[in-house]
């Protein structure tokens, strides 16, 4: 065997399936996204903090949360980056075209930051504190990609 030869062991076309439960909170979140273009958060009855995405427990209060509240859809950039290295997209297994913008967005009425893409049409406008709004997918399927990305608005 040549010194640098590598042995390749493949499992052919076999997949390793895994089915994640989105839970009742996720179910409501994705339904509202798909059917009504609404972004839902959930409010802690003790501290009043509004979480998005919604989930059952407020960590600091260890309190069950049941009150859904609509947030956004607009907000401001809490922090951002511009990805410039070729990243293998876990969705496709192929390299994602660069550059693209990434933001953590403080949606109106929410107390946590919401992760999504940010459009880079005008890179200079992508700044912490910039106001953004979502651009919806034409065909919504009840996934996080029902929002294509957020874009900076004047």
């Amino acid at each position, binding site marked *: 065997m040549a010194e640098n030869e590598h042995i390749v062991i493949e499992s052919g076309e076999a997949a390793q399936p895994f089915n*994640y439960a*989105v839970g009742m909170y*996720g179910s409501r979140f994705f339904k509202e996204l798909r059917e009504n273009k609404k972004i839902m958060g959930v409010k802690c009855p003790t501290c009043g903090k509004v*979480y*998005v*995405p919604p*989930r059952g427990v407020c*960590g600091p209060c260890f309190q069950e949360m049941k009150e859904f509240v609509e947030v956004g859809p607009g907000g401001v950039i*809490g*922090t*951002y*980056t*511009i*990805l*410039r*290295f070729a*990243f*293998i*997209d*876990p*969705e496709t297994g192929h390299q*994602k075209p660069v550059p693209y913008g*990434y*933001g*953590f967005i403080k949606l109106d009425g929410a107390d*946590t*930051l*919401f*992760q*999504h*893409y940010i459009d880079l049409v005008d890179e200079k406008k992508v700044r*912490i504190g910039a106001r953004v709004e979502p651009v919806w997918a034409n065909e919504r399927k009840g*996934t*996080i*990609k029902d929002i294509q990305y957020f874009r900076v608005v004047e």
Partner: protein
Amino acid sequence: MDKAAIIGIGMTKIEARRDDWTFADMAFEATRKALEDAGMTIGDIDNVITTSNDFWDGRTISCMAVGDASGASDKNVSCVEGDGTFGALYGLARTLSGSYGTTLVTAHSKGSQSVSSLITNAAFDPIYNRALGLDMIGACALQASAYMHRTGTTARQLAQVSVKNHGNALKNPVAQLGMKLSVDDVLKSEMIADPLHKLDCSPVSDGCCAIIIANEDRAKKYKGKPVWIKGVSMCADAYFFGDRDLSTAASLSKAAKQAFAQAGINDPSSQIDFAELYDAFSYQELMWLEGMGLAGDGAAGKMLEEGAFDIGGKLPVNASGGLLGGHAVIAAGLYRIAEVVRQIRGEAGAYQVKKARTGLAHGVNGLAGQSHCVWILGKDK
């Protein structure tokens, strides 16, 4: 806390890629080095903790594959998934429980065997976040933006961390990536994810580290010079990335405060002689120093520029070269502990700091400093 000490350390040289090593080969080498360092044989080890991550190792129950090589055959062995500092905390707890006089702790990783962005992407929530493709580099870039925006820390100050640590790594035979750089070299290197240039990012490396922890009785029985554990604490922040204030390290502040209190330290900036921190990215060294109270909030960049964190400075930080000098994920925090031990024993050679009576080692687990583990080690019992 009852007294316990670190009585042996073993580090493999951190390398970009070692095709001639399996995980077990690395663990075997680090374990034998630690035993030799302590003047012990495997029969002197009462129990073993291995530290690994199944995704990085490409198999489930990854800890089992290194058991024999870590000397765990016929012993009580347990494992921790996370950074080596957390594995060591478990090892310390087992030692202090009274059930075991000595504990061997190993941590290993081979970044060369996988696509790191796919693995770190899988740390995100699979329902809301993972499909958007963010990985550790992107996550830390977001944190760096938030930190710089809040504190006014500059890109030049970040670059200066890279210059210092890559320069220090030249002096450390265990480090992978020693380089003589200028601030402009760093700023001219490829922009990976704003504001992080390529030279602001640590490599993803291969390496294994082992340490041996002993209780007070057993610490005196072997030839090794004990380095005493004065305080240890960990704290975790919220799971969802967007729940956190990314510009601060709240969980680190809490962990450090507790560790200082255990060690009887009330003025850390004057009582800690040197530190080895988890600088996976340049900005993190500054942010963690501020989070621990070793620098004022937003003041670390200026102290760095004044030379405070140089090997000859007031508070040498990452004299070993840190993670920027070589980053075996999972093992990185345990390397920090071993490097602090080396300094306190006065065995750090070309990168020995002048005053090394009390040192701090720090490890991180999770995305962009989600959880932190802080160790205070000392020469004096």
